[in-house]
């Protein structure tokens, strides 16, 4: 394990830890979602380092892309009009 490998892996791991702490302890909800998307992308990088390209592809697309889009959509829907609705308009 060369010094450069160690430097890369060490920095990647520490940044993932820092992002994880930011997700859990963020003050603004939007910042936590952004940190989580960043964590997903770095996770894909970590999996490339560990020699698993299939998992890295899937994580970059699913974890970073789809989960990020889901979280942001939910965040927007929670922000707009927290009202008390009846069941009426959901019956088909």
């Amino acid at each position, binding site marked *: 394990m060369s010094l450069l490998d160690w430097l890369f892996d060490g920095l990647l791991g520490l940044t993932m830890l820092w992002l994880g702490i930011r997700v859990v302890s963020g003050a603004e909800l939007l910042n936590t979602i952004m940190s989580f998307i960043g964590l997903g992308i770095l996770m894909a990088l970590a999996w490339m380092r560990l020699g698993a390209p299939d998992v890295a592809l899937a994580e970059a*697309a699913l974890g970073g892309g789809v989960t990020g889009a889901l979280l942001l959509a939910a965040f927007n829907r929670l922000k707009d009009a927290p009202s008390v609705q009846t069941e009426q308009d959901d019956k*088909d």
Partner: protein
Amino acid sequence: MIKTDPLRFIAILLALLTIVAFGHMLAWSLWTLPPEAAGLSLIVNEKMPESGVDAQVTAILLNFRSYDTLLELVVLLVALLGAWYLGKLHLPPQDSKPGLVLEGLVRFLVPVMILVTGYILWLGSHAAGGAFQAGALLAGAGVLMLVVIAEKVAVRDGVRLRALLVAGPGVFALVAGGLMLSGKLMLQYPQQHAGSLILLIEAASTLTIGITLTLLFAGGRPHRGKTD
């Protein structure tokens, strides 16, 4: 950050101490693992010629442990049904038309993404790739369309949509059932057709995964329209 009464504060403190102790035990058990362990990779390497594909992870997902993959596709469908049960689809009206550049970019990107989806699907048989990665990319294209050009995307519940939704687990179950009818065990592919069956199942699964994830992003049951 935590404003709460003393009882809850003490409860949280105890929980955190327990988590720290658990973390230490986990770290210690990871530390004392042997650094070299072949695991199941030897058996997989041995049986690879019989699997019909050249990539190990694809062989495991679609041949050696295909039952897990079948159930995973059903899990996706069940999650979508849960989301559909909770309310109707309501795409908010866009307050501003997307600019020329954004709309042009999306019109360029979506066909390219569909093309790359097909490529990754085909690539899964001999390199890193496969149905899940391709389906996730397809879902990305769907989400892009829903977000940018929403008023031009018409999602209608009907026969075509439902056929696409059950294509993945449906084709998988049909192959399994057909194999059982012809006398073999469930999902025991015949040797010379294994590669083609895997590609067929993966293709159907890619469509299903893409549509299901896009609809999960949209978040509700689309209303019934003309089945066109």
